[in-house]
Structures are given as structure tokens and as C-alpha cells.
């Protein structure tokens, strides 16, 4: 699943380790999500969205038609 996590993280000048600590996950988990190798669970997706003050849909794109 595509996402804007890397861009959002870079905008705040956070490292993967820092974002991981803020989300209480490992640096590898952040890397796996950013590179699309792992799709986060719904609770983690909500934590990510809350941290950036956005909705899940604004961060994650499943490629589906939202119309």
C-alpha cells in the first residue's frame, strides 16, 4: 500500500528511529511501512494519523476509488 509517511517524516525532520519511538514501534517497522513491505494494523494506522494530525486516507492510499 502506498503512503506518505516518508514525506511527512522528512517534513518534521524525524529519523525512522524517532518516528518509531513516537509510535512505540521499531525503526524496522517504520522502514517496512514506508517502503510498502508491511501494511500497519488499523490501530497503528490511527496512531500514525493522530500523530500527524491527519486522516488515515490522507496518509495511506490503497489505490481504490474513493468517489
Amino acid at each position, binding site marked *: 500500500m502506498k503512503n506518505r509517511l516518508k514525506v511527512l517524516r522528512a517534513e518534521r525532520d524525524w529519523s525512522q528511529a*524517532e518516528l*518509531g*519511538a513516537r509510535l512505540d*514501534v*521499531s525503526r*524496522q*517497522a517504520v522502514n517496512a511501512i514506508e517502503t510498502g513491505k508491511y501494511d500497519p494494523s488499523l490501530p*497503528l494506522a490511527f496512531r500514525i494519523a493522530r500523530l500527524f494530525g491527519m486522516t488515515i486516507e490522507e496518509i495511506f492510499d490503497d489505490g481504490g476509488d474513493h468517489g
Partner: protein
Amino acid sequence: MMEATMVDQDWQMRARQRQRRINTVVGALFAVGLVSGFLVGFFEDDEAGLLAANSIPLWLAVTSAIVFVVAIGFGSWKLMKVSDEHERVIHTKTTVVAGNVMLIGFPTWFILWKGGLVPEPDALWLFMASIIGSVIAFAWYKFR
């Protein structure tokens, strides 16, 4: 600036605490294995051979078996508690790979043995293969 510094220290502290929790569980399991292995090696009958039956005292065999089951059971549960969801998925996939090595490996070996092509299936080799399979799977899923 000061607030930013405090936030920096906070996330670094949380990251260290998180890693420490995982290291504690893995370290405790490693220590149990080390002590258990040392005791078995110390009390083992040297003349009986490494894989021979009745080569360690009964009390040590029973104690080691109980400690192993409790340590692995409790350790696995604890490790799942301190891991994040990505690591839990990796652990689950790794266990599936290890189980499949056994489930596919034994019948394959068994049928080849029935045909007289290979020696009788050996549980130790199958166990070792499943461990190797799980280590490779863990490295693949964790670091790819």
C-alpha cells in the same frame, strides 16, 4: 529549544527502554539455555556418546525438560508482549516456516525412505532444518 531537547531525550529514552525489554527477554532465554546446556554437558556420561539414551541423570532430564517448556512458553508469550506488531507478524511467519519445514520435510523424507533411497527419517535433522529455516525466514522478513 529546551522543549525540543526534552522531546528528543524522551523518544530516545523510549526507544532504549523498548530495546532493553526485548534484550532482557532474549537474554534471559539465552541464559537459561546456557545453564541448561552446561549442566547437561557436565553430568553427561562421556562414554555413552552425545546422542545416546540414558546418558544424563533422570533428575536432570526431567528438570531440563520442565525448564525448557516453561522458559520457551513464558519467553514466547513475554516476547510477543514486548514486540511491536511488525515483529509479531515476523515471529508468526517465522514459526509457520519452521512448522512447514517439519510438515513437508518429514513426509518427503519418509516416502523417500520407503523407496529405499535415503536412511530412516531423523527427528534431530528435521528439528535442525526447521531451526535453520526459521532463522533464514526471520532474517529475510526483518532485514530485507
